[in-house]
Structures are given as C-alpha cells and as structure tokens.
C-alpha cells in the first residue's frame, strides 16, 4: 500500500472547512443537551413519581437505542408527522442541521442527566443535614451546597460525554451535512483513497479530544481548589 502524502496535505485544509460545522453541532448540542439534562435531573430527584417516571422512561429509551437510529427518526420520521410540520419546530426540523442538533441534544441530554444525578447522589448526606440544621431551605441547600459539589464530582464523566458527543457529530454526515466527516466522505468518493483521508480525519478528531480533555482538566482543578491540603 502506498501512502499519498500529497493527497493528505491537499485534503486536510478541505476537511478543516467542515470544522466550523462540527464545532457548531458540538457546542449547540452540548448546551441544549445540558439544559435538557438539568430538567431531567430535577424531574428525577423531585421525589414525585409523575415527574420521575417519565424522565426515567426517556433516559431509558435514549440510552438504549443507537444514536444513528435516533438521528434517522428525527430526520426521516418527524417530517411525516403533521403536527410537527405545523409546529414552531418545523423551521428547525426542516433543515438537516436542525435535525442533527435536535437528535444529538436529545441523546446527550439523557446521558448527561444521569452523570449529573451521580454527582448529586455523591454529595455527602451529612452536608445536607448541616444545611438543614442551619435553617437553609431545600432550594438554598440545592444551590449553595449540592450544586457546586455535584458539579465537581460530575466533571470527569461529563468530560467523557462531551468527547463522545464530539465523535457523534460525525454521524450528521449521514443526513447530508458537510461537517468534517461529510467532506472526508466526499473526498474519498472522488479519490478512492480512504486510508489517507480517514486517518488524517482521525488525527483531527484526536486533537480535538485532546483540547476538550485539557479544558475540562483546567475546570476540574479550578473546582477542586478546596481539596488541596
């Protein structure tokens, strides 16, 4: 097998033209997913079965089915539904970009809510009791005690989830989007050089992973400044 270096040098800039789209997918889905996750978390820990059960069912479905299937359902399935075509969501779901963001957010929200819940459950019960004993309301305890400690506990797992979300954005290329993966597939279709192109693409994703992990490492150190002796 010969390795065409010139082709790599030529195609990396082309694939990087899709970096913006990849980052848009990642950042929008991460933010929306985090919002959804927070809502799901609050439902899970509300202590009210009529909130907890629907959240549990949602999480079960979205963690139990392939993300690619979820993307296809949103992209091919939703437009079939009249009420969606009539709703305010239609301008978003009419576009493949909107479909990808919606599907990725719905999926990551399910995972992240469980990560956050792990953080919340990891907060020492004694600290809640200390807060209660001082007269803090449940709401105040959640904001001032649970949240900062749970966030700290959740960072490592959350960081992994952002990395896997970043990798999942590549699936958006299956619904016509020209993110980095979409461009790579186009180049491969033209050049029949899958190794050079996909290996280069893999390296780009690896570098992004490295940056994400570094950034969360800094955040984690900041959030654990109280843990240093």
């Amino acid at each position, binding site marked *: 097998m010969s390795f065409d270096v010139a082709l790599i040098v030529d195609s990396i800039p082309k694939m990087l033209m899709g970096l913006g789209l990849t980052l848009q997918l990642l950042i929008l889905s991460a933010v929306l997913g985090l919002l959804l996750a927070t809502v799901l978390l609050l439902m899970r820990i509300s202590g009210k079965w009529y909130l907890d059960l629907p959240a549990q069912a949602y999480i079960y479905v979205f963690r139990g089915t392939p993300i690619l299937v979820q993307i296809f359902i949103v992209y091919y399935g939703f437009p079939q539904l009249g009420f969606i075509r009539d709703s305010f969501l239609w301008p978003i779901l009419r576009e493949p970009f909107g479909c990808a963001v919606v599907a990725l957010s719905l999926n990551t929200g399910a995972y992240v809510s469980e990560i956050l819940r792990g953080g919340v459950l990891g907060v020492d019960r*004694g600290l809640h009791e200390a807060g209660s*004993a*001082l*007269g803090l309301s449940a709401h*105040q305890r959640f904001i*001032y005690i649970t949240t900062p400690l749970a966030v700290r506990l959740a960072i490592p797992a959350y960081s992994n989830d952002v990395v896997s979300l970043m990798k999942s954005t590549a699936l958006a290329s299956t619904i016509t989007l020209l993110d980095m993966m979409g461009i790579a597939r186009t180049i491969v279709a033209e050049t029949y050089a899958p190794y050079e192109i996909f290996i280069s693409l893999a390296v780009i994703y690896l570098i992004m992973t490295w940056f994400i992990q570094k950034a969360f490492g800094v955040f984690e150190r900041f959030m654990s*400044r*109280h843990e240093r002796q």
Partner: protein
Amino acid sequence: MSANVTDPIIVLENVDKFFGPFQALKNVSLSVRKGEKIVVCGPSGSGKSTMIRCINRLEEHNSGTIIVNGHELTDKTNDIDAVRSEIGMVFQSFNLFPHMTVLRNLMLAPRLVRKTNKVEAEALARQYLERVRIPEQADKYPIQLSGGQQQRVAIARALCMKPEVMLFDEPTSALDPEMISEVLDVMVDLAREGMTMICVTHEMGFARSVADKVVFMDGGEIVEVAGPTEFFESPRNERTKLFLSQILAH
C-alpha cells in the same frame, strides 16, 4: 403569649420513632428548661442520635409530641426552616461545607436565612471565630484544618445563627485524643455563658462539670435521669450501673 423563664424550651412527650419495623425511640419524654445543660449517654444504638435529631426534625417522629421554642413539630410545620434556624447542631463528623472557606461556612446561613448583609455577617463570623479561638484560620478551607479546629468551626457556624438551643451529637468522638479538650473547652465556655445545651457525649468529666441533668438511654428508652453527682455516685438502674462500669473502666 409570654414565656416564663422556667417554662421548658424543649418538650418531648411520649415520643416514638420507627425505622421500618424497628423502634428506635420508645415513649421518650424529656423536658429542657432555658439555660439547662443536659448530657445524654448510653450504649451505641440506644437512640441518642435519633432523639436529638428528632428535636430539629432531621428525623420525623411517628407519635407523641415535640415542642421546640413554642413550636410543635408535626407534618404540618411549614416553618420548619425557621424553627431549625433557632437550634444549633454540631455533628460528630463536623460536616463543614468543603467547598467554602471557614469564613464563608460561617457567613452562609446568616446571609441566606437571616438576610444579614455581607459586612455584618463577616463581622459576626470573625467574632465567633475569636470565641472558638481560631481567628487566624478564617481564609482556609476545612480540609486544611485539624479535626479539633474543624469541630470548633462547626460550633462557631452554629453560634452565628444565635440559636436558643445547641444540640451536640458526640462532638468529640471522631477526634484524636489530643484534640478533645480544645473542643470541650469551647463547650464549657458556652455552658458557662448560659446556653441551653443537649449534648450526647461519653466525656464524663464534661458531664460532671457542666450537666444539670444526665440522661441515660438504652434500647430506645430513657432509663434514668439524674443530676450528675447522683448519676455517677448512686445510679439506681441496673443498666445504668453496668454502662457506667464499662465506660469508667477505660
């Protein structure tokens, strides 16, 4: 409704508490007047923690009556946070908020619950750190302090709310022996200043020097209540005698 000074500030009447089928408190009755110091002792599992945790409703009792500072504690007590803010509690495991400095630990509840402004809350916090003799630790995080220092911060944190009553649940049991006295000294000061206190402890020296009454619990029941001299010199109940012989043997 004017309260007489000799009116009890805490009343427990025929209190039962179950954990599932297990009865942790059996018909417990106790009355504490303002300024009184009560020491509670008894073997492990006898219900001491459960009893004092019922007083600020960290545990909910199943039957009987608990009245704190004129408020009866029931399912319908909707101002439970306000009732709790009048009762200080110190835990065996300190339970300082690890992500806040000592100063912020002390300022949190006055600011949120009492709506004290920042400047006053900080002045109050520094004043109480002085009282527990660690003003220089204000800007450290709890993990940077020794156990004895952490427990003194926990006492100061409770005092910043200017509580009517202080509850202590084995405040020195988690401490290395050389740190016990620095915490007991602070508690003795507090007792001398007239604070109403209920202390679960096995520090019998402390009980002898500050207690007005010693309460002995066993198997979820209050078995004996007596003044400290009577309690240590001439306990009446066999279970008390057995317990004292075990604990004083150490």
